[in-house]
């Protein structure tokens, strides 16, 4: 028998840093969130799809759309969701609701957190949340130029 328990594993760690270039379109998106508390999208000049997060080009028509901006009304619908119940390394402490949302008549969905749901009983919570439920965008008072400058919450009837 091989002495498997004696096989060596060398510990290693990657400790790297980056400065991610947002580009002109990404810069405007983030700046608009921070300075004007509004969600901006770009609209394709050929197929009329409204892309959010804003895209520099329409991948279908393959034309530049970086100067064709539209402001999205800060409400929409929940399109998919999950109730995260596990601590994934480096990610938010559970439980929380993660979803993709269709905002202001856009043609794509954006991922974000759905706040304002009581998660003390997950079975109860999952009956409260449903595809198509109306949501509003809530901007934080103090905004830092991050996606966390806003979140979504249900529009109570």
């Amino acid at each position, binding site marked *: 028998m091989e002495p498997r328990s004696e096989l060596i594993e060398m510990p290693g760690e990657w400790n790297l840093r980056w400065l991610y270039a947002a580009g002109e379109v990404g810069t405007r998106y983030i700046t608009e969130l921070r300075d004007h508390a509004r969600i901006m999208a770009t609209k394709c000049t050929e197929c009329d799809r409204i892309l959010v997060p804003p895209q520099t080009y329409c991948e279908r028509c393959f034309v530049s759309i970086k100067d064709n901006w539209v402001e999205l009304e800060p409400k929409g619908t929940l399109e998919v969701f999950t109730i995260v119940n596990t601590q*994934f390394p480096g*990610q938010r402490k559970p439980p929380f609701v993660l979803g*993709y949302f269709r905002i202001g008549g856009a043609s794509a969905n954006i991922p974000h957190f759905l706040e304002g749901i009581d998660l003390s009983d*997950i079975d109860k919570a999952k009956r409260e949340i449903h595809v198509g439920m109306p949501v509003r965008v809530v901007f934080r008072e103090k905004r830092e130029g991050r996606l966390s400058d806003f979140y979504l919450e249900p529009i109570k009837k």
Partner: protein
Amino acid sequence: MARRVAVVGTGQTYFMTRRKDASAPELVYEATTRALQDAELSVKDIDSVVFGIAPEAFMGVNCPDKWVSDGAGALNKPFFRVHTGGATGGSAVIAAVEQVASGVADVVMAVAMDRVGQTPVAQRVLGLIWDPIFAMGLSLNLITVTAMLNARMMEKYGYTEWHTAKLASKNHKNALNNPYAHLKVDVSVEDVLNSPVLSWPIKLLEVCPSSDGACAVIVATEEKARKITSTPAWVNGMAGYTYVTTPGNEDLDPERYVSFDVRKAYRSAGIDNPRQQIDVCEPYMPFSFSEIGDYVQLGFAKDMKEAIKMVEDGFGEMSGEIPFAPSGGVLCTNPIGCTAMVRVAEAAIHIMGKGEKRQVPGAKVALATGRGGSMAPASATFSNAFILAKEPR
């Protein structure tokens, strides 16, 4: 295709969370030598080598291609790496088949390796595959995103957690017949339903593991293939495809979404009635619920209502109409950049009649698929499909 191409040999390592007994080049060497033995070839018979691996951060060594190329048998030969996320292993086979079909090589070896288990924080690596401006920092990972797709499909089409648990139990039982499978646990539907909820509605026993291991597939021209083996698995159809979408978009719903790659592979293989013509499937199904949508997207069910009934009737079980993932599938073994190649290898194994306890008796036509991507803003999904058959087209 310009020239007929066949799979003439396959090799897999044993898969587990941490293969402490082998370095990365040793894992590659283990798979390539098994494939060469299977085809009864020597490394001298290989004209060219293609290598696939997913993000380096799983293994923690950058540019692994230069590290493993000698173990892949590439000394003094053309060698390159391909990467399309979870579809990598399939893309590597496509690159190998295209070399043979086009006439630039006669015998090509594709090999893929990954060590997802070498880092204890694999989901953290997967937390870093998103657009850093538009999507990072939102706790997205492949479990949470897939859970969302499942929740939407459950609500829209009315299947329940029992249906997905039934499929998970089936795949886990299948893995018991596969000597190379990573997870080998005999679990019942109740065990799956009672396993911890990771990200509702997905539970622990419905999620693929992080696996270490490698796989190799050797492809050859018709002339060489007929000399090498009496049971070549002919690549009658093959296609790759790229699409951009986000979860919740209607084009992702199984009844709307067209698997262009699968349809193209069917067309070139002459398959117009997959349910009659295909004997076994090894689709890329990393989560239990993937199989329900696949029944529609791969052309076995006309809609989701029928697909749900097929789950209840055991359509994809070993004793069912068309076995889905006799190997236990991706649910039981997921060395990410290697996984789609295992699908092709397993499909070939059925055609070659080498499946031993997991063999689908008399299989003449097999389907394999691969899929990789994150379905996030500004991010694509890659997919590929293969039809392997006993008779060339």
